[in-house]
Structure formats: structure tokens, C-alpha cells
């Protein structure tokens, strides 16, 4: 699998940007960095970013990925925007609970609910 390809699927839903991970694992540092950069570029381009990050396919993530999510969240806040997460598998949700990051992020069960909350 070439690492040149984007590991991110980006969709616009009623003015809300949805980021979706392509890979099952968000572990590889190089991928995490490029995912973070792609998200930040799009967030910088928006006046008041409204963003949903969905975790549908994600089976594994590491503390490096959590770090990137926090960086993205700070960028969104700085621009007065809003960020939600959705579709997080129970095993991954546990990682957010252990690190208490469920307090930092707003987490919805589905992307539809997340988009609705930002609309």
C-alpha cells in the first residue's frame, strides 16, 4: 500500500466538513503527521470551521493519533469553530475514557447526529 495516497476521505455535508479515516490503524507516525496536516490545511481555509471526524473503520490508534486530534481541536477552537467525533468503536472509546479525552471532545454515536449537532 503506497503511503503517498491520502489516508483521509473528506466530504462536505451541509457546510460541515467530515473527515473519515481510510486505514484501520492510525499508528504510523508518518501517516498521522500527514493526516494532521491535511486536516489543519482545510481548517485554516475555513472561516468558522465545523468539523466531524468519524472513526468508522478505525480498529487501532495510538497516543500519537490522540495528540494530532488535540492539535486539530485547538486549531478549530482558535478559529471559533466546532469539532465533534463520531462512530467510535467501544475498544477505541475506552482509549478516550482512560485518557479522559472524552471530556475534551464531543462524541456522538453516528456521523448524522454529529452533523445535526453542528448544523
Amino acid at each position, binding site marked *: 500500500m503506497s503511503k503517498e495516497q491520502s489516508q483521509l476521505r473528506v466530504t462536505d455535508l451541509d457546510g460541515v466538513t467530515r473527515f473519515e479515516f481510510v486505514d484501520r490503524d492510525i*499508528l504510523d507516525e508518518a501517516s498521522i503527521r500527514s493526516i494532521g496536516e491535511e486536516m489543519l490545511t482545510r481548517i485554516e481555509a475555513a472561516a468558522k470551521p465545523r468539523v466531524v471526524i468519524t472513526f468508522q473503520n478505525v480498529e487501532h490508534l495510538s497516543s500519537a493519533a490522540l495528540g494530532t486530534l488535540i492539535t486539530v481541536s485547538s486549531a478549530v477552537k482558535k478559529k471559533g469553530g466546532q469539532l465533534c467525533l463520531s462512530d467510535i468503536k467501544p475498544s477505541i472509546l475506552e482509549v478516550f475514557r482512560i485518557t479522559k479525552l472524552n471530556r*475534551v471532545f464531543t462524541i456522538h454515536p453516528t456521523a448524522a447526529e454529529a452533523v445535526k449537532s453542528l448544523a
Partner: protein
Amino acid sequence: MGASPAKASQWSGKLHPRRDEVEAAQVLLAGALTAHNFDEAICFAVRLALEEALVNAFRHGNRDDPTKHALVDWSITDDEVTIQVTDQGSGFDPGSVPDPTAEENLEIPSGRGIMLMRAYMTEVEHLAPGNMVRLVYRRKQS
């Protein structure tokens, strides 16, 4: 030695900071855990802990020097998983690492690796001077 149906699966090798090697080690670890009837939740936990230990070894221990490696050893029985990761660095004081779940640290992007290892494993021991970490998962008595 010899390939008798031994009680413990041993593994020992050198890993370079390349994604394919790290993934290869994870595949072999998952295979060994499955052979000892550890379930998916435990595979998830152990794999996460190994990932964090390796990232720390390569980044903090070896300071991203691509010519340096990490030594990985594991021993797996039906009851217990022990993994040791040793880097070529000079160590650190694990007692001085700030708690990433403290309110004032919650929005700092780094500093969650060791706490995740501790949360998922039964024991996490940084052996002096700190360039070697021992991860133990012990099956709960049922």
C-alpha cells in the same frame, strides 16, 4: 530448545524504526497470543502497549536515529504475557513524567504513552536507567 509443544512462546529480535518491521512484530505477537487463547480485547491491549513502548524507544530513547534499533523480547504462556523493549538511549526518570489526565494537561498533545501502557497492562516497569521497559499482562483468575 527443540520444537516440543512447549508451554511458553519465546520471541526475541531487533527492530529498526520502520513501519513494516513494527507491523511484522505485531503480526507475530498477535499470532502467539492467539495460540495461547488470549482474546481480541487482550490482543488490542497488548498491541497498544507494545506500540507505545516502541514509539518511545525509537523517538525518545534513540532520538529518531534511524541507525539505532530496539531489542524486543517476549515470553507468552497461557496465563501471562511479558514483553521487554530495550532502546539504545540513556534512559529517563519515569517518576517525573506529568499526569496527562490532570485538568491542566488535558489539552497537551503529548504525554499519554506511558499512562496508556499502565492502564492496559498489569505491570509496567521501567528498569534503571530507564532505557528498558517491561510490560506484563497477567490473566485474571476466573
